């Protein structure tokens, strides 16, 4: 009998604290996935309910966070995404997204000499024009399958393999969706910046 199967009160108390330690991360991910605070809280609660019921089969060597996130992701897909699943995974208009590096280089010419990023008016300056809420809104606008990977990989830091297991898709699909999602997100931020006037008309002109 391995100690993993031990259901002593000590183990349960320790696991409870370990699981609770991931509450904020789970909630943050749930909020980005569902885009709604109430749904996010329901999803997190459902996740913990399943975790509690399955605490005895949790294998500690696999890590608490991936285990909880796997339950969260499965529950999210079952409860939320399937509701609005299209019959086929459509080709998104983000297909050809190439990102905005070239535009940044063109619109902030000083970057060319200084090395791309550190010069005044460069990338940092561009990025710092955004408020956190605006970035979250841009993430929320991404198609589900891209948004999930931005959350799992870029925000939560899971490996490609872990993402593939959680979403039950091949690693190659993780890579291509992540690629398209990231490039698409960049373009959305750029468009948003242009709309809001964070990019001046001259900068926009230079980049086009």
């Amino acid at each position: 009998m391995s100690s993993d199967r031990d259901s002593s009160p000590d183990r349960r108390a320790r696991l409870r604290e370990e699981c609770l330690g991931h509450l904020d991360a789970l909630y943050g991910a749930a909020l980005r996935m569902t885009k709604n605070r109430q749904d996010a809280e329901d999803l997190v609660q459902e996740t913990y309910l399943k975790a509690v019921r399955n605490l005895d089969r949790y294998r500690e060597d696999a890590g608490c966070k991936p285990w909880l996130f796997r339950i969260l992701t499965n529950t999210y897909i079952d409860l939320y995404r399937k509701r609005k699943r299209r019959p086929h995974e459509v080709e998104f208009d983000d297909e050809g997204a190439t990102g905005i590096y070239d535009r940044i280089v063109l619109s902030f010419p000083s970057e060319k000499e200084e090395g791309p990023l550190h010069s005044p008016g460069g990338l940092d300056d561009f990025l710092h024009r955004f408020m956190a809420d605006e970035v979250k809104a841009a993430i929320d606008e991404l198609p589900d399958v891209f948004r999930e990977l931005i959350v799992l990989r870029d925000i939560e830091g899971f490996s490609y393999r872990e993402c593939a297991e959680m979403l039950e898709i091949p690693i190659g699909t993780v890579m291509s969706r992540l690629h398209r999602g990231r490039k698409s997100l960049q373009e959305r931020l750029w468009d948003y910046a242009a709309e809001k006037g964070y990019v001046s008309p001259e900068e926009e002109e230079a980049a086009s």
Partner: protein
Amino acid sequence: MIREISCQEAARYVYGYLDGELEPRTRAEFLQHLEACRKCLGAVEFERRVIDFIRDRGSSESPSPGLRDRVRRLFEAGAGAGNGGSVTRER
């Protein structure tokens, strides 16, 4: 001897490199290319900054205080039911 790769090929490895997911050999080829190519180095640095930025701005949300209490109670209720009562299988 490390194989030389083109900018076009290097572009395909940028995210794999930043995510720490390249095979050692590919990683060596990629790094060798970056040493010689300022343009690709700039692109890598750019992508790294954007990803860091997304992580920084995209996280840090707090749930309502009530959620933590409700979740804690779930554990207490679960403990009362001994070995978890009905164990529903995850998929």
